[in-house]
């Protein structure tokens, strides 16, 4: 390499914009949020400082940890439910449906992503309410009314609105890409249908499934709408904690502590999941 390299303006024109833009408007905000968690609030004014007061305040409080474990629990639960509910449907779409039908199904499942999540949540509110659509329907067959809002049930329904379409899409695409001859081989060798799913289909789609579950978890973990409007927020999740602390209390530094704890958790979960997804099964060379 020559010591004096000519600067390639053409290349830089295309390479630089995103670097500058993301440094200023993405890396900047995230790093500033970390710094923010060490700032002080005095008389409702923020002063730049380097104190551990906010960290100490948040991490020694019971309400923070209650909220932390609850969020972790409910997000994992809804992720598990989304993956389990999606599986039979995705299996049918991947192995029983025609190519055309499958393409249409996936196209339809993309629609919810471009439909206002707020409007869908509001719609659930009306459907699940004490005198709402579902209870009215159940009333005709002599059941209910059930209390479905302001409960874990409401929160999970809200999360599923967000994650179920994604789980079905990712699972379907993953399983549709499996080499069909492998499944036929298993069947020819006398493998029972359920055992085929367990010993052939699932191991082959491990990576796709873990990624799908990870996305479901991330979406539920970071959502404030479902637990707020459908769950009634009696047990605030971390996103609600951020919302309350930022919007009402002017306590941005403490909200930053919560946000950083959330990011650390997400990183840990994501790295573990990806390590699992790409780990070679034992005994395979």
């Amino acid at each position, binding site marked *: 390499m020559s010591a004096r390299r000519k600067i390639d303006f053409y*290349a830089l024109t295309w390479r630089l914009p995103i670097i500058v833009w993301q440094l200023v408007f993405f890396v900047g*905000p995230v790093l500033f949020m970390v710094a923010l968690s060490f700032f002080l609030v005095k008389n409702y004014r923020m002063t730049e400082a380097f104190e551990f007061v906010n960290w100490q305040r948040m991490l020694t409080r019971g309400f923070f940890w209650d909220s932390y474990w609850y969020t972790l629990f409910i997000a994992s639960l809804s992720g598990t439910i989304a993956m389990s509910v999606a599986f039979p449907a995705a299996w049918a779409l991947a192995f029983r449906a025609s190519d055309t039908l499958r393409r249409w199904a996936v196209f339809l499942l993309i629609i919810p992503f471009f439909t206002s999540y707020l409007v869908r949540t509001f*719609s659930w509110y009306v459907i699940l309410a004490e005198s709402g659509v579902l209870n*009215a329907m159940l009333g005709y067959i002599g059941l209910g009314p059930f209390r479905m809002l302001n409960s874990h049930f409401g929160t999970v329904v809200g999360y599923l609105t967000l994650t179920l379409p994604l789980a079905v899409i990712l699972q379907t695409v993953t399983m549709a890409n499996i080499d069909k001859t492998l499944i036929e081989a298993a069947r020819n060798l006398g493998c029972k249908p359920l055992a085929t799913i367990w010993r052939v289909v699932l191991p082959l789609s491990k990576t796709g499934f873990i990624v799908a579950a990870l996305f479901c978890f991330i979406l539920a973990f970071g959502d404030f709408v479902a637990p707020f409007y459908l769950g009634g927020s009696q047990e605030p999740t971390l996103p609600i904690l951020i919302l309350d602390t930022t919007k009402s209390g002017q306590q941005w530094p403490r909200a930053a502590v919560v946000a950083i704890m959330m990011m650390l958790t*997400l990183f840990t979960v994501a790295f573990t999941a990806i390590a699992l997804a790409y780990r070679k099964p034992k005994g395979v060379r």
Partner: protein
Amino acid sequence: MQGRGLNIALTLYVGLVFVFIFSPIVFSLIFSFNSQRFPTIPLGGFSTEWYVKILNDPDVWQAVRNSVIVSSSTAAIATVLGFCTAYSDFRYNFRFKGPYLALILLPPTIPLIIMALAMLAWLSRLGLSGQLWSIILAHSVLTAPFAMAIIRLRLHQMDPDLEAAAWNLGGSEWQAMRHVIVPFCAPAIVSSLCLTAAVSFDEFAVAWFVSGLNKTVPIVILEIVQGNIDPQVNAIGTFVFLTSMTLVILAQLIFISRQIKSHS
């Protein structure tokens, strides 16, 4: 497997999953034309009351204007950024390419509520918060990855020799860009404009945090929902749904029809 019975059961099951996914969308549509104040079944009479109400609400109109400005500017910025990055990735290999790509692809994996807080704190530190363009800045970061993905996919279909051929014929790099690359990417660029606009049009968490008093349509929805049960939301929702779907279908049609053409 016991063919018939299982197939029927599976079809029913898939149907149920779709009912769960689409019932909020369908009910919102139905209730937007329903006269009851608290919508339930049996349905009340047919009514366009809620549409009349939002059409006569100056706040809603202002929000629509704001949303149009925000989503179209966001789409333009995100698509330019996405194009530059996709082209760099397509044409060049360079050191730190991994971190370079991570820089553009990471934002969507971070929960919006965290981005909202970080953006609010940072933009107000720079004195840039509380404006309409604060939302544009934030949304461009969130949507640029989608633009990059769409345009990169299109470039993937291009024969790299095409650009070299243009140089051999005496064109400069800039001319090759103008007469070869950009025309080839045109359908992807239009799709990207539509999709990023649709994403920005629906986003509420970050917009709500950084916008100050400038409301976009989703923020108006959020504020109505916070108050009481108000079927106006369904009417606005139907309008938002039609806007987003038009954009998405437009993007699909342009992108897919061109792909078919380029393959034949």
